[in-house]
């Protein structure tokens, strides 16, 4: 009971309590390597996005962290200990792996009450989390009759039951309506602001763009990047990402196109009178070239690569099942 008594806010972040540490984690199934020598750390007080194309090994990595599957090599710890060493889990880690991982024959309330009871959590927690996720009205109904969005909410409720310092979510936005997506983003931000570790997987960069502080990006089971969202976005314009570019409008599009092409850029017509889309030169260089050739510019806008572009560029060669690939 005492565990649920609310204390005054502790200083958030920095404690080893909520840290997820993954070290040289590897999981092989026969000749397939699902997770390949992964090393990264997830810190408290932040939302960390876990990104990768479908089949990159995100779900496998999350199951390894939760001790549901045994690694072929390496270690994963939560708060300094392998999660499986803990006799009871909900007060340490709340997890939503797959909204379908429930028995459809029970009501949502009975499902949560059994989870809470096994972890010595009081009944009041069930009502509190049901209220929190907006399922209080449907709690008495069989889970089999829930929509995917409702099952996601039920899974989030289960993750919140133990008021844990660490939360893991695997593709939590699937099946949620726009209002639900907005709510989940707000919830993740708030959980992180409370000092918790929030680790959220997704295969869509756009889902993480406005939610995550940091990113762990993997492809084909291997680590591609582990850095802040800002650092990751900067890669889009960098040498190992997509090429830089700009939109430009001029009174002499033909002349400017020739000059820029001669300088090594790719030029395409843009929207509207005299507009060009330039790739391969940054805005400063385009401005300088125009000045040199005395071509007046009406507009010049640097096109900063979006996170989506950075993500696509980095993972393009790490996709297992590309659409329209070689037969």
């Amino acid at each position, binding site marked *: 009971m*005492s565990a649920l008594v*609310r*204390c*005054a*806010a*502790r200083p*958030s972040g920095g*404690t080893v*309590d*909520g840290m997820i540490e993954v070290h040289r984690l590897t999981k092989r199934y026969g000749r397939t390597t699902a997770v390949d020598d992964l090393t990264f750390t997830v810190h*408290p007080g932040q939302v960390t996005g876990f990104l990768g194309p479908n089949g990159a090994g995100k779900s496998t990595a999350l*199951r390894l962290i939760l*001790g*549901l*599957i045994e690694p072929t090599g390496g270690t994963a710890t939560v*708060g300094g200990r392998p*999660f499986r*060493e*803990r*006799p*009871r*889990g909900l*007060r*340490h*880690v709340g997890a939503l*792996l*797959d909204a*379908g*991982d*429930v*028995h459809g*024959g*029970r009501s949502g309330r*009975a499902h949560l*009450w*059994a*989870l809470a*009871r*096994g*972890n*010595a959590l009081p009944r009041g927690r069930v009502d*509190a989390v049901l*209220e*929190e996720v*907006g399922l209080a009205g449907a709690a008495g109904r*069989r889970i089999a009759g829930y929509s995917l969005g409702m099952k996601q*909410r039920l899974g989030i409720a*289960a993750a919140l039951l*133990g*008021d*844990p*310092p*660490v939360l893991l979510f695997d593709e939590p936005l699937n099946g949620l309506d726009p209002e*639900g997506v907005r*709510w989940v983003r707000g919830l993740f931000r*708030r*959980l992180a602001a*409370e*000092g918790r*570790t929030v680790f959220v997987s997704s295969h869509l960069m756009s889902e993480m763009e406005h939610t995550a502080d940091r990113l762990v990006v993997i492809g084909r089971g291997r680590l591609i990047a582990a850095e802040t969202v800002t650092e990751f976005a900067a890669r889009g314009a960098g040498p190992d990402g997509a090429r830089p570019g700009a939109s430009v409008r001029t009174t002499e599009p033909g002349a400017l196109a020739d000059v820029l092409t001669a300088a090594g850029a790719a030029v395409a017509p843009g929207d509207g009178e005299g507009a060009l889309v330039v790739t391969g030169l940054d805005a400063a260089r385009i401005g300088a070239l125009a000045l040199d050739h005395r071509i007046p510019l009406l507009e010049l806008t640097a096109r900063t690569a979006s996170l989506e572009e950075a993500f696509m560029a980095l993972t393009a060669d790490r996709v297992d099942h590309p659409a329209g690939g070689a037969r």
Partner: protein
Amino acid sequence: MTTSTTTGSTATGSAATGAATDPRPRFGDLLAAEWIRFRSLRPMPWVLGAGALVLVAVNLNAARYTYQHTGPDGPPPGSGYVGVAVNVSFTGMSANLLMLLAGGVGAAVIVGEYTTGMIRTTFAAVPDRRAVLLAKAGVLAVVMLGFGVLVSGVSFGLAQALLGRRHAGVSLADPGVLHAVAGAAALAPVCALIGFGLGTLVRHAAASVVTTVLVLFLLPASFNEDHRWSAAIAHAMPFTAWRRLAEADPTHVLQPPYPATVTGSWLAFAGWAVASVLAAAAVAHRRDV
């Protein structure tokens, strides 16, 4: 569906405080959780209720037959009526039905968790998997023992009330009667735990029911009682063990060369139950989910 952000502060705390104050893990909590899981499955009360009615009806029908074929003055002396009175209060037919029902319920309890993926949610909430499996088995055993006591007791009571009107009834105090009634009651949890163990090994609904039927019914049929070794194996089977316990008065029954014993039959029940639970716990502990 409306969600309120203002209720958030009541559902989640203002700081990550959980890890510091983990209460001592108690097995009783897991038993309570599994009891909630068992009774919240909608079909369970219906399956057990309908099963109990069918079993009692099958037994009562056998008692009625004996009642109709016994004269008003009661059975002739030396006819071994005690054995008959016990046998009709729990017939071989209802023992088979009980084994099927209990084995199916036991398998369903664990297979349902594996096929739905619920087992991952369960093990993520309670990483001590062996304790989870033990708690599930414990709840299953207690519920099915209650079911067995109810079916065996009611069948016995009704049969003896009927036969008593022909002076052919027996009471629990008569020699051998108590272990016959208790043996029928214990058959339910033993077979449920066998189904539970096989369900954990197989993890597939149809396949685990087939496996359970094979182990409960086909395996005993493969061993005769002509040789000491095959008799020993045969007597270790749940159905054979029950049959020996149901023999209240063996003096009127033709005995095989190597007869089973009451003690051995109880040990066979215990052995199957314990081995099934230990195998389930060991497998679940090691295997990826």
